């Protein structure tokens, strides 16, 4: 029994040669973005990646464990708050603040997880929503620390990342690492267990798996990644206010995930790009851009309920056949 876990020796870090090549090409193409786009567009691209990471973290739960969370905006925002607070008020270095932010988000996620993992379906949705609202309430009312409605400002971004392109590349590097980590996570034996739980919780239980524990770990890991996104967002905006932890934020990242395709993981980036582009392009034509956004969602749900990536995959595989 000395057979290695991955039987195929041509695999690179768990990826097949083709997948590794595609991943490398995508990253290289993305790295060229600041050379062709204007500063403002580079800023938007940075935002796309940050929200892509957040939407991916939601997808870990929704796509692989069958639990859609409406509390991830709050977990994300906790990290943003902690990072801004520790640099602007407590005087920590950006790196320390970053770590503290991610830790705080992970801690909050584990508390959420403890309370929520024994529920599923709409109850899970409502419970995470309520927990998120508590965080929002705290951020709004604990004025001495959070600055209340006004939020907090500070120079969070480290000096070497001040330019748009430098920060973009840093976020790109971060996004690449984090995406790879999440991809490995959902493909690991642990990730397979999560999928098993999604498909049949009772069967997994009767096979002897500790379902709540698995979900707890899954939720906490997902919270960790949401925290990374939140910390990057703090550096992106140098500012945080209750709207960052509000329900709208949670809903938006779920919508991004759905638009990209539930369970596709990387669809999150497509979804986030689609929504951020819509917000910015449409809003320059009409102030009713939210209406356009809403209609777009309805259309996606009717014609591509499996999301943009999901639809593309379906079309491609049909052609191949």
């Amino acid at each position, binding site marked *: 029994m000395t057979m290695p876990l991955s039987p195929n020796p041509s695999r690179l870090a768990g990826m097949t040669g083709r997948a590794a090549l595609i991943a490398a090409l995508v990253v290289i193409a993305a790295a060229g973005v600041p050379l062709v786009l204007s500063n403002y567009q580079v800023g938007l691209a940075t935002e796309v990646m940050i929200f892509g990471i957040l939407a991916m973290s939601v997808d870990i739960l929704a796509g692989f464990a069958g639990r859609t969370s409406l509390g991830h905006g709050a977990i994300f925002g906790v990290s943003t708050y902690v990072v801004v607070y520790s640099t602007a008020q407590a005087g920590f270095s950006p790196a320390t603040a970053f770590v503290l932010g991610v830790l705080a988000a992970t801690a909050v996620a584990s508390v959420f997880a403890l309370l929520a993992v024994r529920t599923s379906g709409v109850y899970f949705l409502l419970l995470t929503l309520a927990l998120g609202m508590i965080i929002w309430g705290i951020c709004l009312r604990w004025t001495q620390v959070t600055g209340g409605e006004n939020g907090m400002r500070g120079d969070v971004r480290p000096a070497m990342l001040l330019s748009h392109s430098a920060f973009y590349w840093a976020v790109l590097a971060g996004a690449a690492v984090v995406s790879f980590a999440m991809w490995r996570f959902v493909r690991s034996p642990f990730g397979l267990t999560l999928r098993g739980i999604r498909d049949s919780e009772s069967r997994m239980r009767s096979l002897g798996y500790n379902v709540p524990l698995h979900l707890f770990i899954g939720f906490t890991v997902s919270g960790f990644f949401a925290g990374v996104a939140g910390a990057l967002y703090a550096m992106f905006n140098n500012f945080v206010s209750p709207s960052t932890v509000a329900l709208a934020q949670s809903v938006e990242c779920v919508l991004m995930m759905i638009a990209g395709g539930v369970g596709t993981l990387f669809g999150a980036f497509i979804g986030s790009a689609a929504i951020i582009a819509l917000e910015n392009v449409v809003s320059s034509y009409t102030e009713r*851009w939210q209406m356009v956004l809403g209609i777009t969602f309805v259309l996606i749900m009717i014609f591509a309920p499996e999301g943009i990536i999901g639809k593309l995959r379906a079309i491609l595989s049909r052609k191949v056949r």
Partner: protein
Amino acid sequence: MDRRQFLKTTTATVAAAGVGAAPWRSAQAQTGPIKIGLLAPLTGVVASGGKEMVEGVQFYLDQVKSEMGGRKVELVIEDDASNPDTALQKARRLVEQGNCHMLIGDLLANTGLAVANYVKGTGTPYFIPIIAADDLTQRARIKNVIRVAGYTASAFTHPLGDWALKQGYKKIATVSQDYTFGHEQCGGLSQVFTEGGGEIVQQFWHPLNTADFSPYLGQLAELKVDAIFAMETGADSTRFIQQYAAFGLKAKTPLMMAMNGTDQSVIRTIGEEAEGIISPAHFAEGSDNAVTAKFVKDYEAKYGKIPSLYGFSMYSGMMWIDAALKKMGGKVEDREAFITTVLKTQLDGSPLGKVVKFDAFGNPIYDVYIRKVTKRVDGKFWNVPTQTYPEVSQFWKYDPETYMKQPPYSRTFQGIKKA
């Protein structure tokens, strides 16, 4: 002379030369229009105020035929959605993609503060006729963020505190929205009132968008105070005024409000309930000053409503910028000179009918009216001045240095003097 010093002097000289040279260079060399980025909440909780901000700006641009300082003006309007994250994104868009020479606007303090923090990095001049956060002209000034035709939140409630003392009020209770704008306005009144011997019996803080005020009104009725001060904005204010009257408190206890509470944007939708409410402000649409009366008449003719503080402030803000641009021949590209010129410019043609200047901290000094909501001949309600406090400083009668040593007003610090 070290390098830094050299840079400083050279910049100053070049800037000075730029200003000096402007009048005869303005005819040539000016390429393209002046681009002004206007941020206003066209959607979200304060959307109605946002629309009046846009009206105010357009009203001015129509009058000057979209020409300021001898150059065409291109106005780019973006919706900040009453949300600081959106405001920040739109500000980036206006500056980085739209190449706007300056930004103006925002209504909610949190949106304004987010944009202020952003322009601190880019150096873009940002004008805030509405954002009233005290510290922007006090403890945390940002050089390129300028309060043209704006005001600090506590500046008008300081005199109101004094006025309340002179009415013989001994005990007051306050009720206010629980955010910085409310803390600051309440704090201004509380400090002056208690230092003059008055007593603040109790302070109530409620979240924004409170639908039902009865828990607060019930308690207020029990307190047996001489007067009540309420700081409300927008829909909260409408509901508060209506419920205050419905509770029967209107007949018993005089009501004072912060300026936004009885603004046209609020009282034009309600009637009798608002009559008699006292509030302090620099602008009173019911003033008999000829210039103000003409402004109100023209605005009403054009938009079919009496102008609100939002419309008035944005209009005056644009006028102020225009006055500065005229002085420097429209050379808006020279940011340093532009900012210095604006700060040195005084506004002669303000709809207030008086000359307005900045103090040393970049805050305009106004005559503050104590206004009373009164019925106009045609049955509409408006604010009529009853008393004037001339040239009120944002520091009231305190020494600026000492004043700024005390913490900013917050829920926990209201400047209340311990008896």
